[in-house]
């Protein structure tokens, strides 16, 4: 095992060409951002690469961890392993073509990503959406939130060593994915919404399926919180671990359950209502301490709130057209446009600069995961390796959204 101290001690013998190229020094933060060196000079610190191929990074995220025994001293996320230059590609595609690229940002909230892009286009061209279209958007996005959180719950258990939760979470998620599959033929990368509504109308089985889901979900959620979230080991592993203060949460720009877990009441659906969210009655669950447990509880309660919204929407699901008249090309007038939605992971914004053509001059996504990832060092330093994994899991990261 090589530590930085070892290399200094042994001098040139240790330094081969490849070693200096991949020197561990390069894995730390830039000078000035580094944590102070340990007070105890005898302390033996070493680096561990968690990722890019690791069971708990849920994708190709590489986290370089400086460890002192079991204790985490510093965490530095290294990005770029799944960079596909989606924002650059966007400049060479029309707005409708861009919708399918937005699926690939955060694949667990593909509908919300679609919606965000469509809303920017609608805002620019002042396209209206029929009532049925708005209801479809809202219900689908809430279903999406539910399936994303179910997956998160399953993976959270797995990261803590309780493998079984993964399969339970997937059981109900499968029902939701079946709805999506029937809707548009895809389960993950859906490419469904269009400016002015959605590409196709929902099938006749949509509302019965949602009602079936509404019937079984409350019981299932109770069961799940009894199985994992009330387990004494779970409580010991999450309470007081990875505390994010409200000030820090704001300064890092974290959103979603990470921000609300710290007790800050901000939800785009409430604070800046889009679609028809202002017509629905739901609460924004908040945490108090900002630890891992609060983030978990916020997500668990969000699932219940999503069910509330779905119940109201299913009861008054209107008829009529699902989409206003589509245009052949969406030519955005010269200028810049911004829209934002609340995805299951937080605030997704899309910023379009148009030169008046059929393609965007520049398209920028403001992804929630990137900001949420950046608090990792703040949260994990001083905790054990096992807690680093739990904290990463409670941030609910989707890596392709970070790199884009």
């Amino acid at each position, binding site marked *: *095992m090589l530590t930085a101290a070892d290399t200094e001690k042994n001098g040139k013998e240790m330094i081969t060409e490849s070693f200096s190229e991949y020197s561990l020094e390069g894995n730390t933060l830039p000078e000035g951002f580094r944590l102070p060196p340990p007070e105890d000079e005898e302390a033996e610190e070493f680096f561990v690469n968690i990722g890019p191929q690791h069971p708990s990074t849920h994708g190709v995220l590489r986290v370089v961890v400086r460890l002192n025994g079991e204790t985490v001293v510093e965490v530095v996320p290294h990005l770029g392993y799944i960079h596909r230059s989606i924002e650059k590609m966007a400049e060479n595609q029309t707005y409708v073509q861009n919708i399918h690229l937005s699926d690939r940002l955060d694949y667990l909230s593909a509908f919300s990503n679609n919606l965000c892009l469509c809303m920017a286009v609608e805002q620019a061209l002042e396209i209206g959406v029929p009532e049925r279209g708005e209801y479809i958007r809202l219900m689908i996005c809430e279903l999406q939130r539910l399936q994303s959180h179910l997956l998160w719950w399953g993976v959270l258990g797995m990261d803590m060593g309780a493998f079984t939760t993964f399969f339970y979470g997937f059981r109900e998620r499968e029902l939701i994915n079946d709805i999506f599959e029937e809707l548009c033929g895809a389960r993950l990368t859906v490419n469904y919404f269009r400016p002015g509504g959605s590409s196709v109308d929902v099938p006749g089985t949509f509302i019965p399926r949602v009602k079936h889901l509404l019937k079984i979900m409350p019981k299932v959620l109770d069961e799940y919180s009894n199985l994992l979230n009330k387990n004494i080991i779970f409580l010991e592993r999450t309470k007081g671990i990875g505390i994010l203060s409200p000030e820090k949460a704001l300064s890092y720009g974290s959103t979603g359950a990470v921000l609300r877990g710290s007790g800050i009441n901000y939800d785009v659906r409430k604070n800046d209502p889009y679609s028809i969210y202002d017509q629905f009655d739901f609460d924004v669950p908040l945490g108090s301490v900002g630890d891992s447990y609060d983030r978990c509880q916020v997500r668990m309660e969000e699932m219940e709130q999503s069910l509330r919204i779905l119940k109201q929407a299913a009861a008054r699901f209107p008829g009529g057209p699902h989409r206003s008249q589509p245009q052949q090309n969406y030519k955005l007038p010269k200028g810049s446009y911004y829209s934002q939605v609340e995805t299951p992971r937080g605030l997704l914004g899309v910023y379009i600069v148009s030169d008046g053509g059929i393609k965007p001059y520049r398209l920028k996504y403001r992804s929630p995961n990137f900001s949420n990832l950046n608090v990792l060092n703040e949260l994990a330093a001083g905790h054990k390796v096992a807690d680093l994994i739990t904290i990463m899991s409670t941030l609910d990261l989707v890596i392709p959204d970070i790199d884009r």
Partner: protein
Amino acid sequence: MMPSSAELYPVNNFIGDLVRSIFQQPAAAVINGLLALLSLMALVGSLGAVLIFLERKVSAHFQLRFGPMRVGPHGLLQPLADGIKSIFKEIIKPAGADTFIFFLAPLLPVSAAFLVLAVIPFDHHLQVADPAGGVLYVLGISGLSILGILLAGWASNNKYSLLGAMRSGAQMVSFEISIALLMLLIVMLSGTASLRGIVLAQEGTIFDWWIFKLPFLGIVAFIMYLVASTAELNRTPFDIAEAESELTGGFATEYSGISFAMFFLGEFVNMFVAACLVTTFFLGGFHAPLFGLPVIDPLLNLIPGFLWFFAKAFLIVFLYMWFRWTFPRVRVDQLMYLEWKIMLPASLILLMLSGLFVAQGWVG
């Protein structure tokens, strides 16, 4: 007065006597030893296959799956296929690994299981050896299995492995103490350290087993022993040495092919061994669960003791599996806290209280 099980099954070593009648003394002893070894090897081999199959099926049914279904009826031949696969896989030795220790380490957990199985009384006369200090022997040998993990982690030249080994080292020195104290409790109650003697001391009905014979404290001791042995076994919720979601594979990260399979086999057979010890210490070993009822008891006694033994042991194995597929994992410092701050004082108090119970004659 119903016949005691010793009368029903008098000590009778048929094969041993046969060998002795054919061969002269030195040769007979060697042949008998080899036969015992052979039977143990057969036991370990078949147990490994059965337990791996069982774990896969149990976990599958906990997780809404079927588990292996393709190889043979209900996937019965899957362990065989897995075994053949792992034998033919390449064994990769990482650069910088300590070759001798790297290949020695996987053998230790299995050998520990072997050695402990030799003193387990499966039935009245189904026991390879019955040393007077059987409990001490078990205690000494079972440390070997964690030693294997420790060496594997150290020899792999991998940081994940080393972290896993460090964790299991901490685990080794701590939970062994609780286990030793609880074994001491049983020795005190039974008045003997021979495993066969401990089982014979629990003769009678189900209420003569130590779990029930010692009022209330027996159940507490049983639960504590279960917890401590789960920690000894490195199984969830105490599988911090492997911790696949944190350390990718912990001590076993760098192992492949048959050397990984040996770890796997060792883990499963050790689980069975631990279950055997629980059965021996608390659940009356090979005694049938009699309730003191006139009609049913003779019927239960008709079933041979080793079947009762295996039934009880597999029940405990199922408990271990149940733990594994239900609980999240504890953190390494919480594990230490559990041992030194809770389990150790509790087992000391338990030992003292039981001594009081015995002195006052409240046992049984």
